[in-house]
């Protein structure tokens, strides 16, 4: 099978863009991606855009057609993918499959989410649409609440501490200081987290990723022609996706995202590597507990030892396995439908050696882990700068 490469990347700054709508955000990311490689808009044969809920966040559906139109790419075909917060990792995967199939050579994939055109409580309600409407949202469960249920059980079973959860936020804020696109480029301390207001016990506001506007787009080509468009192609060595129950109450083990375990296992097999070979990872830290669980489910440590891994500093830049060098969803920001491709953009910068003060030395393998809902969809991609 032929390979797939990422030749161009483009991302807006993440944050509250009161002066920009979906259109401006998408076009800004798209132009940056095209200018990042020697490609012209007319070369693009297919557009795939991830978006969780344009309808509820901005009253706008038909995002696929909007993207083609606003990017000036009509009559190029466009597809929207939706898998809650994993919408754009799924877009990337569909683009990867489209090129692997031989049907397309050059595909633009990305994601966009405009979340600040509604009030906070409506954003919370919209995000809760990723869980079971009839059996979870009906009783007033929120997303922080869903991960709080996981956190309490993880603390009960494995002795994970409140401080260890806080350390995830502290590390990710520290990394974001050096990321020009990050929403919060500001250091915080463990006591800042522990003194911040409770959202859903035991999670506090500084355990939670923020409400964010943003867009991220990458240009994919078949690996054979990638060097025509860039001197630094980054290759997709694995693309894996798995599903789990929509509701967490339906799972025997609440402290494991079994879709992560399955997608990761498939991805490592495709890339023919082991977890210890990963040099840098972007994982789905929508809430601090989820980064700790991701360490375990991705095989960076044993089950139950995620808290120790963060406490030992092993996931900091300079540690054994740096995680969320971008600042993660926590500090870089989490425009839900754009997050999956934004994670990919951070890995591309790392693997090109263009990550500035965030740069991880000698990196060859990068892993991205994007979660939809409370783990009902998980997508894992593995990238390398070595074909």
């Amino acid at each position, binding site marked *: 099978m032929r390979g797939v490469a990422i030749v161009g990347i483009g991302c807006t700054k993440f944050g509250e863009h009161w002066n920009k709508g979906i259109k401006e955000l998408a076009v800004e990311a798209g132009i940056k991606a095209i200018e990042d490689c020697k490609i012209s808009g007319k070369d693009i044969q297919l557009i795939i855009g991830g978006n969780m809920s344009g309808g*509820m966040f901005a009253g706008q559906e038909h995002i696929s057609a909007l993207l083609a139109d606003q990017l000036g790419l009509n009559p190029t075909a466009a597809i929207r993918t939706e898998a809650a917060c994993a919408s754009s990792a799924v877009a990337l995967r569909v683009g990867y499959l489209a090129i692997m199939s031989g049907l397309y050579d050059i595909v633009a994939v990305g994601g966009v989410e405009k979340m600040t055109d509604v009030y906070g*409580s*409506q954003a*919370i*309600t*919209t995000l*809760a*649409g990723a869980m079971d*409407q*009839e*059996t*979870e*949202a*009906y*009783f*007033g*469960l*929120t997303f*922080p*609440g869903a991960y*709080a*249920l*996981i956190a*309490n*059980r993880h603390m*009960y079973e494995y002795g994970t501490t409140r401080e260890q959860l806080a350390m995830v936020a502290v590390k990710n804020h520290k990394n974001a200081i050096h990321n020009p696109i990050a929403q919060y480029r500001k250091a915080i301390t463990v006591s800042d987290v522990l003194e911040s*207001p*409770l*959202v*859903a*016990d*035991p*999670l506090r506001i500084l355990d939670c990723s923020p409400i964010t506007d943003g867009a991220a787009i990458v240009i994919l080509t078949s690996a054979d022609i990638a060097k025509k468009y860039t001197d630094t192609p980054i290759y997709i060595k694995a693309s894996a996706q798995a599903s789990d129950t929509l*509701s*967490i*109450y*339906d799972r025997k083990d*609440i402290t494991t995202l079994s879709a992560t375990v399955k997608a990761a296992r498939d991805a490592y097999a495709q890339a023919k590597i082991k977890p210890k070979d990963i040099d840098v990872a972007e994982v789905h830290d929508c809430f601090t507990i989820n980064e700790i669980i991701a360490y375990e489910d991705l095989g960076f440590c044993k089950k139950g030892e995620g808290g120790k891994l963060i406490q030992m500093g092993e996931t900091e830049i300079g540690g054994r396995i740096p995680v969320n060098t971008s600042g993660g969803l926590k500090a870089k920001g989490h425009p839900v439908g754009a997050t999956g491709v934004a994670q990919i953009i951070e890995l591309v910068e790392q693997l090109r050696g263009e990550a500035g003060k965030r740069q991880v030395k000698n990196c060859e393998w990068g892993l991205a882990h994007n979660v939809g809902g409370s783990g009902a969809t998980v997508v894992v991609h593995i990238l390398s700068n070595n074909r």
Partner: protein
Amino acid sequence: MPKEFAVPFHWRRFRERYQIIGTKCEHCGSYFYPKRVVCPKCRRAGKLKEVKFSGKGKVITYTVIRVPPEGFKIYAPYIIGIIELEEGARLLSQITDCEPEEVKIGMPVKACFRKIRSENETGLILYGFKFRPI
């Protein structure tokens, strides 16, 4: 919940929510709440039959919602838990008649019939089960 749903959205679940009715697969013995049409373990070989749960169970995990979604503002803070019913199925529910600092993992609970919320002054009043300490 987004805006307000039309009556059928709630009406078709009244029985299940008022009486805690789910399904049991007679092929593998698994219980499910809410009702499933297909047994995820046995699929086409499965034989799902309606079953009424006893309403007794224990708390597997819990949280206290302090920043609620639309429609729940006046009820916050409230406790939400995952309950394992004595038949083996698990479900999510509010835990009531109990202070946030009193709820514990492993705590025995039983179902009671309560108001969940009202949509607005003239809209639907939604009922269902909550669980309280035994």
